[in-house]
């Protein structure tokens, strides 16, 4: 009995807050990007560096839009390790984080040993540190890896700097001869190489989820056909070459199937192609055009473009189980080429507004939408694997270029082009 009373009283006391305290609620943050300093890495190799690691990392972080990188000229000191850091200096400069490091060269193997540390200025402690090694050619990749680690340590979101992009370039050689290339490059547009070259157009490159293959449409045989190409070996496989339209290939989440648009049965319909058995399953059946299909990340839904609602392209979504399309875009007369975000909660698509075509995003639950880009002719959005950036093609001074914008509409930059007009970008999944 006594025990029960004691327990009861204890329980009551536990529920009663004993102290009256002031709580200040903070529900707004600074609009500016996070201040970070990337100090040039000390070069102890005894030779000129083939790659400026700090510069690559600075560019990566600055482009993400989430960071504001301090110019080297404004730094009060140039430490190379956390022990050399005078925190007061960096606080004075208003910096939250400082990245320091150094590079040594192992002469017999030709390998560079890169040591780096990221310190939190206000907590006065190191939060990431690693020793990495790479040969001269691998230094750029190594730098992107450092960017990834820094990005994740600070934001909690995996960095996507070590990923790749695929895109199609076209360059006019003579009056009636154009060269088309399917290119693959690092996510910053560097280190590009040609996967396939032809004098006929190529379209719609799509990465397999293991990042090993690209599926795309090529006209090089004289009419459109869908191909799969292994990136490392360059080996190409023709998947379909039906009469009429063969377009918009898109991998299933497990890479076992391709969604595609075929017109072999009359007009453009969406099919699922099983890569192992080469069998086709028809998913839509309507006299309107159905095209540009994409799987949801859980493989349960398909989103696509259709003009079945009265002539204008709009976005429809259907469950893979019942295949009943439901219209989900209602704003404006043109909404097309939808793609799911990695968590399946948003759809990114092309939206016509005010005479121009822009990239927009839509919440799959509430169907609320936001326009993300402002250039006039924006096409083919593709999301970075960490869901933070969108790459798309647009026109700049009459030339096709690739642009990247952050999903919250903040940062924006253009990627350089080396072979004429650039189109149809596709951002790879994480590479490992």
């Amino acid at each position, binding site marked *: 009995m006594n025990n029960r009373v004691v327990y009861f009283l204890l329980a009551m006391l536990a529920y009663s807050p004993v102290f*009256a*305290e002031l*709580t200040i609620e903070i*529900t707004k943050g600074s609009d500016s990007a996070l201040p970070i300093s990337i100090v040039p890495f000390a070069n102890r190799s005894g030779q000129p560096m083939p790659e400026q690691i700090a510069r690559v990392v600075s560019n990566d972080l600055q482009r993400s839009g989430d960071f504001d990188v301090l110019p080297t000229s404004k730094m009060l000191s140039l430490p190379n390790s956390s022990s050399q850091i005078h925190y007061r200096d960096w606080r004075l400069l208003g910096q939250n984080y400082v990245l320091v490091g150094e590079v040594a060269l192992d002469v017999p193997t030709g390998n560079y040993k890169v040591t780096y540390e990221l310190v939190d200025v206000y907590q006065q402690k190191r939060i990431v540190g690693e020793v990495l090694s790479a040969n001269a050619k691998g230094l750029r990749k190594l730098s992107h890896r450092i960017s990834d680690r820094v990005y994740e340590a600070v934001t909690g979101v995996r960095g996507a700097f070590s990923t790749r992009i695929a895109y199609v370039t076209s360059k006019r050689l003579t009056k009636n001869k154009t060269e088309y290339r399917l290119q693959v490059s690092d996510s910053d547009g560097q280190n590009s190489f040609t996967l396939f070259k032809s004098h006929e157009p190529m379209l719609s490159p799509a990465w397999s989820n293991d990042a090993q293959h690209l599926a795309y449409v090529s006209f090089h045989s004289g009419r459109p056909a869908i191909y799969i190409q292994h990136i490392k070996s360059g080996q190409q496989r023709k998947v379909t070459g039906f009469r009429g339209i063969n377009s918009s290939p898109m991998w299933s989440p497990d890479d076992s199937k391709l969604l595609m648009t075929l017109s072999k049965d009359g007009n453009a319909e969406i099919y699922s192609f099983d890569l192992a058995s080469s069998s086709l399953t028809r998913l839509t059946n309507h006299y309107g055009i159905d095209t540009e299909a994409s799987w949801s990340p859980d493989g349960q839904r398909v989103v696509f473009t259709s003009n079945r609602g009265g002539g204008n392209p709009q976005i429809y979504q259907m469950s893979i189980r019942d295949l009943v399309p439901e219209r989900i875009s209602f704003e404006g007369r043109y909404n097309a080429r939808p793609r799911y975000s990695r968590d399946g909660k948003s759809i990114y698509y092309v939206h016509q507004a005010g005479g121009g075509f822009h990239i927009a995003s839509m919440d799959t639950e509430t169907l609320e939408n936001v326009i993300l880009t402002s250039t006039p002719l924006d096409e083919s959005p593709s999301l970075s694997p960490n869901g933070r950036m969108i790459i798309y093609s647009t026109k700049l001074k009459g030339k096709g270029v690739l642009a990247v914008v952050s999903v919250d509409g903040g940062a924006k930059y253009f990627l350089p082009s080396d072979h004429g007009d650039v189109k149809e970008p596709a951002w790879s999944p994480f590479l490992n």
Partner: protein
Amino acid sequence: MTNSRSSDRVAKNKKIGLANPENRRSLVFSIILHLVMVAVLLFSWDFSESVKRIEQPASMKARVLSAAELEALRADKQQVKDAALKEKKKKSDLEAKKKRLKDEKRRKDLAKKKAAEKKKQDAAKKKALIKKKEKEQRDKKAREEKQRQQEAERKKREQEERRKALEDSKTETARSEKQLERERRLAERLAQASSSDVPIVQDANASGSGLAEISERDRFIALIRSRVESRWHIPPKSRGLKVVLRIRLLPSGERSRVEVVSSSGSKAFDTSALNAVNSIRIFPVPDDPALFDRYFRNFLQSFSPPEE
């Protein structure tokens, strides 16, 4: 709870009888326990209200008004008894008001939720109907118009409710016109403080002496808040996260200790809040040592990203 306990007792009475000394002891025990419970409940209730955020610093109000009352006491000692009575009444009035404010807020939230639901349903219905672009545009306009109307209606309703609540309190307690005016201003100021982060600095000195302390406190809350907000870099994908920090300051405003009281579960998010606070070496605090001790020597700060 009391019912089950007394039925318990009845059951026991049947078994052993009330004459049993042990039984009598437990009866006494039970009475004491009830008294303790009541005391604890009163105690905890009083305080749980005062922990609420600044929209409803009800207990602060009580303190402040009592200070004003004390001045009145000094002026006229004969009214000691009256004042005490009045004070008691005021307290209960305040509590009633507190409750009303709370109820009102709940009502408002409910109305908002309902409106949101209604909006969602409307959108679904519309979805099915939309077929032609002209109609789309018309619908969009209508929706916007409706939203505007709803917003206007909601505002009107809120105002009406607030006015009514104040009127009720007037008839109920027949308080002086001045007090009512004071309360109205306070309610407005609180509403302002909750709707926007603009500190209510300008009219701090203009208001009555009782309010001076609250406005002084609010002023420094607003100063601290804007200082911290300007230093807080919210990490991406933070929607729905919340971290609470305890901050201890020296009377000079110098930060002495910061710790996480309740983590958001995300290290990056917790760190972003810690860094915001740690980037400020000296916080703006009042010169008045009593005010400092009461609120700013040791306080909590919660961080949650804006809802979109």
